[in-house]
């Protein structure tokens, strides 16, 4: 999988938040074999070295970092946060979140496009957290995005793919654009479904971090993502309404 010209071996991308401990986080990443980890920037108190401790932890994970602008509700906030993240994590990659609605954490499509354009012009490689809206997707591509990250369901809900029709349509409209289903996944079967639809990868956090056993859930997601991708590549059969015998009819012993 190529994202902005960078080859990423794993199609599972994993967040780093909400784990019970740093050790559990590290073990979950090991079992997930995720190639990309999402991270954030947050206020640091003077004399505190929490940032440095976290930085040491994620460097040991040996993954590509994708900083986010989580929690930003305005274009300016998102752009400033992206700049701070670029300096801290030394990467032009940014998962761009511009939130438009407090309860659903639904992206603000207008702010998202504006911020994507500004950041692209400033040399960022923008991974926009978006909806399955095809018009919005087109605008984001026009703004310079080379990857799209539509939601499966609202962040942290674990509802899975709430609009399969929309996701299928989006995939079909832009067959050559790398696309990642980001957010809303709760179970490996949902990740497998996203991959079967032809999505290039999935990004999740809460489903693993809040599982009773995060490392085991991470392993489950890793296998589901691989299974779903193999199914997509294998060109699945068409469903049909009527039964069709799989065992040959010809040659059946004639018994009454």
């Amino acid at each position: 999988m190529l994202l902005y010209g960078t080859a990423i071996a794993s199609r599972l991308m994993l967040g780093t938040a909400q784990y019970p401990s740093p050790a559990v986080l590290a073990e979950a990443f090991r079992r997930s074999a995720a190639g990309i980890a999402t991270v954030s920037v947050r206020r640091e108190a003077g004399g505190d070295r929490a940032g440095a401790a976290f930085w040491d932890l994620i460097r040991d994970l040996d993954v590509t970092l994708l900083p986010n602008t989580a929690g930003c509700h305005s274009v300016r906030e998102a752009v400033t946060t992206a700049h701070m993240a670029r300096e801290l994590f030394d990467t032009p990659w940014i998962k761009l979140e511009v939130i438009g609605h407090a309860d659903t954490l639904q992206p603000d499509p207008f702010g998202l496009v504006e911020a994507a354009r500004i950041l692209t012009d400033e040399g960022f490689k923008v991974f926009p957290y978006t909806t399955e809206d095809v018009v919005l997707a087109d605008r984001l591509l026009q703004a310079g995005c080379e990857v799209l990250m539509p939601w499966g369901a609202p962040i942290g809900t674990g509802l899975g793919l709430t609009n399969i029709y929309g996701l299928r349509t989006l995939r079909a409209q832009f067959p050559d654009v790398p696309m990642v289903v980001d957010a809303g996944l709760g179970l490996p079967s949902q990740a497998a479904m996203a991959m079967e639809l032809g999505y290039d990868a999935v990004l999740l956090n809460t489903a693993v971090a809040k599982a009773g056993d995060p490392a085991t859930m991470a392993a489950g997601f890793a296998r589901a993502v691989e299974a779903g991708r193999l199914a997509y590549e294998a060109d699945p059969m068409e469903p049909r309404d009527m039964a069709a015998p799989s065992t040959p009819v010809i040659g059946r012993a004639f018994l009454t």
Partner: protein
Amino acid sequence: MQITVNGTATEVQAQTLAGALDELGYRDAKVATAVNESFVPATARDAPLSPGDRVEIVAPRQGG
């Protein structure tokens, strides 16, 4: 002068952002900064601060 650091009113003797970071215990910390909602790169922290400036100091954290 009085400035706001991460949302809290703070008195500093320093006249620059770099000086304020030193004074407030961020020396050698892995942080990024913004003043009045605009990003200030590490290479530009010698610019003078003004009373009432709103300074944000952030560090790497967990994220989804």
